């Protein structure tokens, strides 16, 4: 259990995430602590770049226009590109000296997990860190779907067994987010063909033509149910428009949807 002062410190920092990236959300004032935001999309649609953008926003000091908070980044498929993050920081810092870069990077914690079991056990052992680092308020999992096929294969015929580990991870993540007032961003990859049956469509029929997303839920119910915002990423193919990427952001409880475009430059995501 955490000491009272660290809880207070975290509550004090509560307002800080509102300015993380307003363009990503359909509602003003998002995200708040306790939100679980899922980034979903096929390969090459800018999910990882968006994560770097958020990380940069967090770890840059207030004097540089950032939020000056700490981030825990869980990388499940050896995807994280430190050099790319550094390039983004170099473009965004007024004074991009080695010292400044390292000071920013000091607010980032990275961990690699090689299986869903290790992910679960790692979450348990990270719990302590959230207690001792009150300014650690952003948790990122890239991606939470990485072990899908391996878990399915290991679970044999039983869907229950196949989903067991991810279900436990989802439940524990929910507990961590709730008890330590975190915001969780997790990416899921589009690895299935879009379902043709309208019954499985994510959007109500009237909105389908407006927001046609390549989405077919495949992760366990425990995960589906804890997500508060789902953001779909896609790439625009006519490159006449300079903004090459699109996000369709859905606030699940309030049923608000918004569509925005962004481009990716050397300095990272630009809306």
């Amino acid at each position: 259990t955490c000491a009272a002062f660290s809880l207070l410190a975290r509550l004090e920092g509560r307002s800080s995430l509102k300015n993380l990236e307003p363009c990503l959300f359909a509602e003003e004032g998002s995200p708040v602590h306790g939100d679980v935001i899922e980034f979903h999309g096929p390969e090459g649609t800018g999910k990882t770049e968006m994560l770097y953008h958020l990380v940069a926003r967090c770890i840059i000091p207030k004097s540089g226009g950032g939020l000056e908070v700490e981030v825990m980044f869980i990388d499940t498929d050896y995807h994280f590109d430190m050099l790319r993050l550094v390039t983004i920081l170099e473009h965004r810092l007024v004074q991009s000296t080695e010292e400044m870069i390292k000071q920013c990077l000091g607010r980032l914690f990275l961990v690699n997990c090689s299986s869903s079991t290790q992910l679960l056990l790692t979450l348990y052992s990270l719990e302590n860190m959230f207690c001792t680092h009150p300014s650690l308020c952003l948790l990122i999992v890239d991606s939470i779907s990485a072990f899908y096929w391996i878990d399915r294969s290991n679970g044999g015929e039983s869907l229950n067994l196949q989903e067991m580990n991810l279900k436990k991870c989802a439940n524990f993540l929910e507990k961590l987010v709730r008890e330590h007032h975190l915001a969780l961003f997790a990416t899921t990859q589009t690895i299935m063909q879009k379902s043709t049956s309208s019954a499985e469509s994510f959007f109500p029929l009237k909105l389908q033509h407006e927001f046609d997303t390549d989405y077919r839920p495949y992760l366990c119910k425990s995960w589906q149910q804890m997500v508060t915002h789902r953001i779909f990423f896609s790439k625009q193919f006519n490159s006449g428009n300079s903004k090459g990427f699109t996000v369709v952001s859905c606030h699940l409880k309030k049923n608000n949807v918004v569509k925005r475009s962004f481009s990716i430059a050397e300095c990272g995501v630009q809306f």
Partner: protein
Amino acid sequence: MVVLRAGLCPGLTEEMIQVLRANSVRTVVDFVSSDLEDVSQKCSLSYKALVAVRRVLLAQFSAFPANGADLYEELKSSTAILPTGSPSLDQLLDSGLYTGEVTELMGTPGSGKTQVCLSIAASVSLGLKQHVLFLDSTGGFTASRLYQMLRAQAEDEEEQLEALQRIQVARVFDVYEMLSALQEVRDRLSQQAVSCTGPLKTVVIDSVSAVIHPLLGGRQSEGLAIMMQLARELKMLAKEFSLAVVVTNQVTRDSSTGLLKPALGRSWSFVPSTRVLLESKGAAWEEATTRRSASLAKSPRQPTGMQVELDIGNSDVQEPSPATPTEGL
């Protein structure tokens, strides 16, 4: 799924195991996720002892977080950029092959994938005097072609032979042989005292689709699971030992956009950091003037769509003579 057994960690005795098992606590995950006060009561075990065991189990089986600043320091000293042997391809890749990453070369048969792989092997071995592991799953590796490339780049026979010796070729014909070969490399590298300055910097796999394709389409998840296991091995190898891993893959045409995309499906598409499409232009009978192009389909550093021309004719992968102007330089 690690099952609890005596001696797994200090403090975990056989008696404890028996009593835990009787109360449905069988694996490490069961133990760690249990309410220890509850377990202590039900099993009549010391709460303090259980907490101590939990701490040790977590330390043993969970991953340890690293600080960004420390990681950056490490990367600065261990990352290298390797020349491919073709300056225009190097330009496309933002100076060359980056260690710590998986780079994919995709193209139809005859588009030059194996040629580029041989050029990379020759360039790294001769130019950097570093070792290369070449896993050949198609039977396309020809030592004579490799030797030809080396001869064109170095005059000294001694140098050529040394370069040949630094290239280790293994023929693997199914995914299990491939996984086994990679495991061997991992074991060998783990034993080295200072792994990031070891002589092996490059692993070339020609091709990945040859061993994975036969597994897909049957009992879906089995094949995909093995493919993702291979993907994980490759990325781990690249990251942990600072290697440049190069893989080749076939292409298919996307039904909705009509564009060429890598074979092996959506799950595989996320795996490489960089993807280059190799294409062969010009009529098939005009062997001597076959123009091959490389375009950037995926990159963590550069905008996609860039295209350069490669000259792989009867000679090695080299820039054409100044008399013939080329694009992309």
